[in-house]
């Protein structure tokens, strides 16, 4: 499946869990499940973790893996369905609480219309779901030039921006 980063650039393909990720995806030569990560590696295996990505479901508990995150190359967050917005918060928490600096990849069931939300919540790239095209995602990334909240992606934070003076002070 095609992978796009949040600038709309293609990044090869997402291969299966048992396959060698070639070329490496955001530094990861292999992507493993949460269970496999804990089984195969210790948080101290920093050299191996530097070439490893972990794929997390919405039910995986991040606190179980706290020691791994600073060393992992990449984290994939899988949307079980596009209506389940937990991965947006997971991305925020990964960046803030677990100091994860690597790439966060969105996978699973999500819509092009969520692309900007993904970018602004801290995702770095997404595996384009089969029923959509890369073009739809690229176009969605350009839908807004402004946002009201602080977030990633370069849009001005309107709550902190010096705004226009009111055009007219209306009553009441």
């Amino acid at each position: 499946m095609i992978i796009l980063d949040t600038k709309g650039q293609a990044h090869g393909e997402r291969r299966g869990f048992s396959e060698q990720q070639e070329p490496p995806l955001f530094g990861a030569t292999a992507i493993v499940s949460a269970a496999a990560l804990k089984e195969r590696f210790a948080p101290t295996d920093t050299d191996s973790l530097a070439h490893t990505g972990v794929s997390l479901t919405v039910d995986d508990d991040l606190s179980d893996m706290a020691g791994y995150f600073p060393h992992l190359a990449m984290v994939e967050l899988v949307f079980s369905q596009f209506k389940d917005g937990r991965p947006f918060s997971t991305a925020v928490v990964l960046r803030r609480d677990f100091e994860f600096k690597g790439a966060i990849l969105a996978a699973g069931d999500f819509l092009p219309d969520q692309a900007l939300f993904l970018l602004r919540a801290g995702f770095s790239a997404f595996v384009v779901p089969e029923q959509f095209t890369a073009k739809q995602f690229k176009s969605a990334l350009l839908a807004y030039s402004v946002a009201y909240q602080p977030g990633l992606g370069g849009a001005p934070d309107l709550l902190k921006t010096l705004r226009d003076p009111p055009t007219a002070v209306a009553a009441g």
Partner: protein
Amino acid sequence: MYTYDTLDKALLNQRVAEFREQVKRRIAGELTEDQFKPLRLMNGLYLQTHAYMLRVAVPYGTLSSDQMRKFAYIARTYDRGYGHFTTRQNIQFNWIELGSTPDILYDLSEVDLHAIQTSGNCIRNVTADPFAGAAADELDDPRVWSEIIRQWSTLHPEFSFLPRKFKIAVTGADADRAAIKFHDIGLKIVRNDAGDLGFQVFVGGGQGRTPFVAPLIRPFLPAKDILRYLDAALRVYNQHGRRDNIYKARIKILVDSLGADQFSLDVEREFEKLDPDLLAVNEKEVERIRDMFALPYLRPDTDAQAGLEQAMEQSNPLRRWCETNTEVHKVPGYAIATVSLKPVGGIPGDATADQMDTVADLADRYSLGEIRVTYTQNLVLPHVRVADLPLLWAALDQISLATANAGLVTDIIACPGLDYCTLANARSIPLAQRISERFADLDAQHNIGPLDIRISGCINACGHHHAGHIGILGVDKKGVELYQLTLGGQGNRDSAIGKILGPGFDEDGIIGAVENVIATYLNMRTIGETFSETLQRKGHSPFKERLYDHT
């Protein structure tokens, strides 16, 4: 009032363009209905029994006269000449074609209006006190904070796909006219002992299948931290709210299952992790917004009341209207006037395009161009000179909007029910109309005194039946519409959930049951005692005994 600057307008225009594209993709078959549904819902577009329904936000219940005229235009151009004001201060147009919706949103954007997040599992339009900026008992204008919350919550990247919908209400007065304790988060503006402005935070209120009055989880939150705290609370909810059962997905269930104390601790823990500066409310921005809501100087007129008394002596209908439909304004010589959308036998909350245009003109003439929408489905002209009340009343009377029943038995809140809504089990509107006709006599209504009747056509409780002094819930029992009666609900600062009185009634039976309950009250009340006070003093038993012995 808040007026959009170039940045607000840019975002709104981009939203309109995005939705135009989404509708195009849906019509072309590139989006399935399942994929389109959450996108259209985030633009307030429902598929109802007969047609698409578009719910347009009235931001925290405040409208300008030009915005009201735009509603009239939409009603005439795209609907059947009327609109329906809802129990969340919004307006719904019930006969919309999908292909027209991008044009409607474009038309609305011309006057800074939109349908963003009026549905879907996201943060909805903020509810506020409809008397904001005019009420004599107000500590601070809740619209300032509601606008800040509106901006923060609009197209929020993290909180647009929550477990369920999320409703926030703000009041700046002790008398709660926004039912804040029946919201997911209720904010009451307070000052601490040092005189600093802040909020009491209530979380986990709601109606529906499992009603709760929200517990207080933060007695004082400094005003500058409001967004940081909301961010923390929403993140806890987004991560831990249930998603396996739609009926258990609201934050009230999470708060109840964890306990308010534990939920509060979880939020505080998250709050502490957040960078205090990242979401600190910018004081300059608060002042910019506050300036736009500032009331211009109004010259106090302490003699106006005497003139009104004279006019009322000449006209009993005017007197009755002033008694029920006007409230004290913070400036002597001014009044807050409620425009009843509950004419006898009418559909609660409905207004025709002509009525909307006339109300807009009257707002320009008598109320500084401002209109409010109440969650009780009425309109308000918030800044009327007391001396102008007779003229306003006469003008409203000409368009059938001067019914002197605000807060009385025929000021019924009702959801659209089975007539429009696909979720409903029973009809609400015809029931409201029949009760209204039964108690049409204004003298009798004024004799009965303050009494809220609220009707929901299903357990989702859009008609707020849990919070009605008399609540009516429509249920489907083996294909038959039945109505359950509850007594004792309150949607004010003493919020309470009504208790079911006994077995349900059919449509004829429920009318009789309401009559019976009111007759029981009239028999038992002491001089000057309201329905609620009698119920509190005597309890439910006498009502139950009389009702089920006689029906």
